């Protein structure tokens, strides 16, 4: 995979149940499209967090994405729960690519994911969009960010783009 001047898409999906996020997580893994990474984070109504992520995500993180970080605590008052879930997951997205994902994600998601909600983040080259995006069937809130450039910068920018779209849709 060439890292110069590539276009990266980041899809953020919001869900009202862990099962639904997990279904889409499995679907993108089975889609045949190349993934830079995918992660699903859920919080049950008691507040317990659960995290699943692809090997890709760990590998990409270890390759030097540790500097990526995003603001937490989007306070968008959405009309629907789905939007809130998605917005909250947007806030947590950056941490998903941190090389110390597990601990940091837990801390971040604990603050941002609504009780009972779940989110899915998928990063993939734009050329894989035709396979990856149709696999997402259960998200009740979905945005896609896109950016071009060196791999790390493109990934960071695409995440930022997706977050902004999530925030805009939630206000």
């Amino acid at each position, binding site marked *: 995979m060439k890292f110069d001047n590539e276009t990266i898409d980041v899809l953020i999906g919001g869900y*009202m149940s*862990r099962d*639904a996020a997990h279904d889409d997580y499995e679907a993108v893994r089975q889609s045949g499209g190349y993934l830079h990474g995918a992660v699903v984070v859920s919080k049950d*109504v008691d507040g317990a967090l659960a995290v699943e992520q692809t090997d890709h995500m760990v590998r990409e993180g270890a390759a030097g994405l540790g500097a990526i970080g995003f603001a937490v605590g989007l306070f968008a*008052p959405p009309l*629907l729960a789905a939007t809130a879930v998605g917005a909250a997951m947007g806030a947590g997205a950056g941490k998903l690519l941190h090389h110390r994902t597990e601990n940091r994600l837990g801390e971040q998601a604990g603050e941002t994911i609504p*009780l*009972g909600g779940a989110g899915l983040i998928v990063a993939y080259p734009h050329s894989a969009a035709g396979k990856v995006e149709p696999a997402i069937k259960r998200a009740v809130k979905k945005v896609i960010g896109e950016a071009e450039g060196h791999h790390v910068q493109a990934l960071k920018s695409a995440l930022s783009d997706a977050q902004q779209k999530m925030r805009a849709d939630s206000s």
Partner: protein
Amino acid sequence: MLVLIDDAGFGNPSTFGGPINTPNYTRMADGGLRYNRFHVTALCSPTRAALLTGRNNHAVGFGSVGEFSTGFPGYTAVLPRDCAPLPRILRDTGYSTAAFGKWHLTPDSQQGPAGPFDRWPNGWGFDYFYGFLGGDSGQWDPCLAENQKVIGTPSTFGDAENPYYLPDDMGDKTIEWLHAIRAQDAQKPFFVYFSTGCSHAPHHVSQAWAQKYRGRFDQGWDRLREETFARQKTLGVIPAETELTPRDNAFPAWDSLPDRLKDYYARQMEVYAGFSENADHNVGRVIDAIDELGELDNTLVIWIWGDNGASLEGTITGSFNELTMQNGIPLTDEMQLQLAERYGGIDAWGGQLMMPHYSAAWAWAGNTPFKWGKQVASHLGGTRDPMVVHWPQRVRDRGGLRSQFTHVIDVGPTILDIAGIPQPTHVDGIAQKPMHGSSFADSLVDPATPEHHTQQYFETIGNRSMYKDGWWLAMRTQRIPWVLTPEVLKDFAPGKWDPDADPAELYYLPDDFSQAKDVAAQHPDKVAELKNLFWEEASKYQVLPLMATLSTFFGMVPPLPEVSRYEFRGDVQNVLSGMVPRIYNHSYTITADLLVPPGGAEGVIVAEADHLGGFSLFVQDGTLTHTYSMMGVFVYRQEADIVLPEGEVTVRMEFSADGPKPATGGEVTLFINNEIVGKGRMDHTVPIRFSAYAGMDIGRDNGGVVDRSYEDKKPFPFTGTVHKVVFDIKPHLSDDENELHATSQHGQTAHAITA
């Protein structure tokens, strides 16, 4: 024995060709008579009022339901004293009388220990009552009343291996009552009113019953209608020439649904079917007990399968929580499925963690072969239900079919006729209005007896019809029954809505059992005649003012409440859901004075309802916590950052609303002894009502719990002392206050007409 099933349709029970196995209903029908032209009103309380008084529902104050009481005489929800009901007459003439299950005839605001009790079941003439006062109830965790006391949720609710289940309990209590009567007096006649919460939402039943229907509805509602229709013809419960009415565009074709959602939809009907069969089972147990006493041959059993047609109130999507629709939360079917998954998945649909309602399209299929359903008084889907009459000692034509036009107001006069009891002219010194129904007793012994009930009006929320000598004028307001948005309602405002301009349909039922052939265009004179007759009847029976939907939507609201502060001492429990302080859409505070013993305390300080809508202020692991469930869709929790101190302690939860508007967001602040100890935000709050039935408790969380983190300790009683809990509902000024009040009334009304 009078049995009434709730929210069910003509095409539900197998006894009438439906897909739901009802062996006991069939046993009664095969040993007695099926009535296939029996009619009800299109709504819960109105049918019950008509059934138990023998009079038209508006004439006894029940144009609408018990939750909705206005100053218009036909809509007070208060039984007039000049209309003594059937149980009172029977009790006064020597019968032991008892009612079990759903009541729904006591005004919402009178369901507490201060009464008054003359409109509770005992006041209607029942010696004994065991059941629930409202319009629906959880079957796992009901908040019950016994005679004149709300007794709450049975203690066995918490038994994981043998959980409490109301339908079983109703059967047990009825049999126990019958045995007690016979132990004292071997001859005294009895009158049992067995009124199931089934099959109203929430559709609660164990897996064992629901699993019997696994895969039985995978064909969808369109095909199910065709199958039911074919069986109805084979059974002969509908005439051979009957036509199956077409699907209205309000209901989607089954084939148009995404394949991935069909299991979700099919499961809804599987649970409903299992729930309904369980009701048949428990009625059967009571019948068996009467048989075992040796009295079945000489017991008149009248069993009506539905107080109105099957309910459309689940909207097209169905819901994991019946009150999401009533609270105006727009959720797609995918969202509903995901919320169901949050609380256990579709296999847990019907279990203790959800309060499900099925899709309106399943209800429509349950009303086969008719159009529409509950609330739609213009069409038979809302107004025609099965009735079976069983009386071996007198009925010779066992298994026979009766097709005389009959109506729910005929039941009372028929029972009195058979019992040989005249209608009283005076009760308690008050001259009585005569019953409006007519006895169909002679049809029990003579299949060819002429039709006595030749004329009847119907009206529910503006939907109306006029029946006379076989002709049926149908006038439906042009509103989808489950849509109550301001945009839709504005077209029905007084002065704007012209009832006579509503489309008029005309059917001749002797030739058209299902209302499939509208002949209005061929008979304009008949249409005009029946329109005029409706207005005459409406005037005579207090239907007027005729309103499409209800008066509160059009500026007619009760006076502003004068009380904004409510005090509850520490031992108050089971405050019914319609009587909790109305904190909705407001800023408010909850303040509690506590005594915390040395070593600390834990438990619930105050809790309303449960995890699918409610709030709880509690202490766990030394931490003061406030949990708020916005109908199980959003769940918010705020915690104190210090340990609750010992001694006399005052804690306070303060909600500062963003503004006086429905479902307002706002900021929560927790205080201990006036020091801020925690904060949080709630983006959305409940605009209308937390629960249809679950109550509020001080010092514990009875029934289903609000915060499931203390599920294993329920009811999680407070181990210190709760001196008192005070609700202060912050008043808003001038226009804001009036707007909020109107909004509150709209919400209550929306709840009421779907109860």
